[in-house]
């Protein structure tokens, strides 16, 4: 027996006790809030095993189609000019129409009819002629194009939400379309529901717009806003939709501010009980650079005041635009607008190349601000949602496999494991008992590691554990068959055990490393269930190597030692129960 076995033994006891502490709250199903048990962490179960939160989000297609028609109308106007087709007007009309189907009306002098018709027919396949009167076309979107817009908007929304949730670190959510204008998001037992919801629902449209400081002073603008508020009876109360207030304000301000400009606000929020500070700006509506040109965004801490901010990098296209914009507008103010709210409006001091910038955050205390900054960086990186989403429904949902199946499955696994244990103990006797013992330890280690990694366990993950158990049984079989072979070769027991373990080691290592290599690839390139499987498999491979080579060998050594003691004075041990 090798010296220092007791050190190995204590290491094993230590690891086992630690694992039991990690796994106990999960197995005993402790209420983590109430328990006095010092270790407060449980294994997270996925949607298929535990269920979670079921949310339905509605896409605001009225706005989407309004925007689409508006863009078509703008494009028509430009093309008419370019092709020198004189028209009287191109307008979007919404009156007496369904909210999601606005039309474009083109008015022209009668002789221009053919030219107008020809251009629309040739270049605008997505428009159809709804009605015609003398010198007037009413155009609407074709149903094919409407379907295309719907499908694209939904699939883009799903993609963006998936990216955001992935970055937030929730594993294996379900995100799918429902009907034609809704998205279902299912999240497994998320701890910070509100934060997750905020992350999912935020549009995250980033724009850079120039500030108009010439038309009126800040005081004049504030006065104008106050007048409009009084005149139109618009006001903003806590709890209202701020976007709605801004939209109303801009509608009322039309004619009072120059065309092609808009009113926007900077909001400083955070300290409860204190009134919101709203700083108004007059902006040029055209967005010079948008978040579409964003390459990366990350959280940084300002060394001066220790406050986190989000710094971003633009892609080459965006950087060129930004470079030109700043060069042309030195001394003027550039507003950074996120979801129609101004975040800051610094004066351009010099030309800014490289396309880097920062977004400062509102007020708030340290931790909260850090979370805000992290979430903002996530949504900016994941990209903007193509449309505004609204939470329509939020409910609890049971496990997708069904509670009954889970109970049955757990029972079946238990029966299966017991059958294997009995078989192994029958086949290998005392050595079989050792194998079963190390097998149980192996599963314990896998579960403890999963708790430690805060991984989410789903059915694919369980498949990984089942595979681990299979491979672990195999490792024992390989070792024992080797020992038997060595015994047949006529080696004594100690020699056979040593040689058996040594020769089996290479085999086990090769088999496990090949599987580990594949598992790492699945972990890196796979998503969702494939990743979940890879995590448990990888953990399982490590624990299997550890138990087969370290634990099993150690117990065998102890077993041989005991045999030797029993046999003291009666010569060399002759029989091994294998």
């Amino acid at each position, binding site marked *: 027996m090798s010296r220092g076995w007791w050190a190995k033994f204590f290491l094993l006891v230590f690891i086992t006790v630690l694992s039991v502490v990690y796994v106990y709250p999960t197995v005993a199903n402790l209420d983590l809030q109430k328990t006095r048990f010092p270790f407060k962490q449980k294994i997270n179960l996925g949607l298929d095993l535990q269920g979670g939160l079921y949310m339905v989000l509605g896409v605001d297609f009225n706005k989407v189609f309004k925007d689409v028609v508006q863009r078509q109308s703008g494009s028509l106007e430009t093309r008419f000019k370019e092709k020198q087709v004189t028209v009287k007007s191109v307008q979007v009309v919404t009156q007496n129409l369904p909210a999601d189907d606005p039309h474009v009306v083109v008015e022209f002098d009668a002789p221009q009819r053919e030219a107008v018709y020809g251009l629309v027919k040739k270049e605008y396949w997505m428009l159809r002629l709804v009605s015609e009167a003398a010198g007037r076309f009413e155009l609407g979107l074709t149903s094919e194009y409407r379907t295309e817009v719907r499908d694209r908007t939904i699939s883009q929304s799903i993609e963006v939400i998936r990216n955001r949730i992935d970055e937030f670190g929730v594993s294996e959510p379900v995100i799918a379309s429902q009907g034609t204008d809704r998205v279902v998001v299912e999240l497994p037992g998320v701890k910070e529901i509100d934060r997750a919801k905020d992350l999912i629902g935020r549009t995250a449209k980033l724009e850079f717009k120039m500030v108009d400081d010439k038309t009126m002073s800040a005081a004049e603008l504030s006065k104008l806003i106050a007048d409009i508020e009084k005149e139109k009876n618009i006001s903003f109360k806590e709890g209202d939709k701020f976007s709605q207030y801004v939209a109303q304000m801009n509608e009322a301000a039309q004619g009072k501010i120059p065309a092609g400009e808009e009113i926007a606000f900077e909001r400083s929020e955070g300290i409860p009980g204190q009134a919101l500070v709203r700083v108004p700006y007059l902006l040029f509506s055209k967005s010079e650079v948008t978040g579409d040109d964003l390459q990366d965004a990350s959280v940084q801490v300002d060394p001066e005041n220790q406050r986190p901010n989000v710094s971003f990098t633009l892609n080459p296209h965006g950087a060129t635009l930004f470079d030109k914009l700043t060069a042309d507008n030195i001394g003027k103010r550039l507003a950074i607008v996120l979801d129609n709210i101004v975040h800051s409006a610094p004066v351009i001091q010099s030309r800014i190349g490289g396309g880097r910038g920062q977004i400062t955050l509102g007020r708030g205390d340290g931790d909260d601000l850090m979370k805000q900054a992290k979430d903002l960086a996530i949504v900016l990186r994941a990209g903007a949602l193509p449309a505004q989403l609204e939470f329509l429904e939020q409910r609890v949902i049971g496990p997708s496999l*069904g509670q009954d199946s889970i109970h049955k499955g757990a029972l079946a696994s238990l029966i299966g494991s017991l059958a294997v244990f009995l078989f192994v103990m029958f086949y290998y006797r005392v050595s079989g008992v050792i194998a079963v013992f190390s097998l149980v330890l192996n599963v314990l280690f896998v579960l403890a590691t999963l708790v430690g990694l805060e991984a989410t366990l789903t059915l694919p993950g369980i498949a990984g554990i089942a595979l681990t158990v299979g491979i672990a049984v195999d490792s024992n079989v390989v070792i024992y068959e080797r020992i038997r072979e060595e015994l047949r070769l006529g080696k004594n027991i100690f020699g056979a055990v040593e040689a058996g373990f040594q020769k089996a080691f290479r085999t086990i290592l090769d088999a496990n490393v090949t599987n580990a290599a594949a598992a790492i690839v699945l972990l890196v390139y796979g998503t969702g269930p494939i990743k979940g499987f890879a995590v448990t498999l990888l953990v399982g491979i490590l624990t299997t190597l550890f138990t087969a080579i370290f634990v099993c060998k150690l117990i065998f050594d102890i077993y041989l030692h005991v045999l030797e003691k029993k046999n003291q004075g009666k010569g060399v041990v002759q029989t091994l129960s294998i």
Partner: protein
Amino acid sequence: MFEIIRPGTQIDFVGKRHLWIGISIISILATIVLFFTKGLNYGIDFTGGAEVQVKVPESWDISKVRSAMEASSVKGTKVQQIGEAASHQFLIKAQGDEKSLNLVSKQVEEALGKTLKTGEFEIQKTDVVGPAAGSSLRTSGFLSMFYALLCILLYVSFRFDTRYSPGAVLALFHDSVITLGVFIITQKQFDLQILAALLALIGYSNNDTIIVYDRVRETLHQHPGLTIEQGVNRAVNETLGRTILTSLCTFLTVFALWLFGGKVIEDFAFTLMVGIVVGTYSSIFIASSFVIYLTEYQQNRAAKLKISGGGKPTSVKRKSMPNVRPEPKFQP
């Protein structure tokens, strides 16, 4: 000492390798033909489907709703509780699309109506849902499996020899394709759970193959006098006990899962059961046969090169070499 396989057993596994490979090639071709004609029965995870929300009386639990659905004509259902437990609402997902939505809803109504009176249950809403595993997930899944196989190919070439790696990867390909073939024939639903089972069986078969390979490598190294055929056959025979024992143990667990696991787990366990059988078969017959083919190919090529190089036309084929060392015989 219990022994399933007596030591010293010499079954001729590799002698009929053309036959085994032939059977496998036919099975793979058949699967490919079936894949394009009959097709996999993709579950709603991949295709999306219809979603019906029902409210049932308090005496009904999820298993009752599930068995009512299974007895009905609604295809490929999944039942899930929604809302608080006290609300007794369930979400029934089934195969279907926009056109068949009314039909599915009617079928659900009929299924519940068999045992419940009108008014005791309520169809609360019906809708179509998109796939939970969309196209991007499918693509990344496919790609990651491809990279994983590539990785195994490289690792086995590096750790063993280039003669070994194609067999290992082909065996894995063989296993997954044939398991898919069984799925096409039985028309069981292929969904995310089955994908997980498929991954697990690839891992299992990989483990199995490497253990046989390891013994082939060792045997050829220790007994240089053996022909490649003899070496492989001997290695397969020597590991036969462990192969059967391990497969038996794993099969036992999965069998219990299949027998007692209930309807939902059943298909998952079924995949693993098929996989264990096919995976064990492929490590014994397919992966090792490929080592023989490739070794023979290399030797033939080496011989041809020698001829064209102007050297004496000697045969370097291992097969023709005399068996120098007699095989040692062990007494059990």
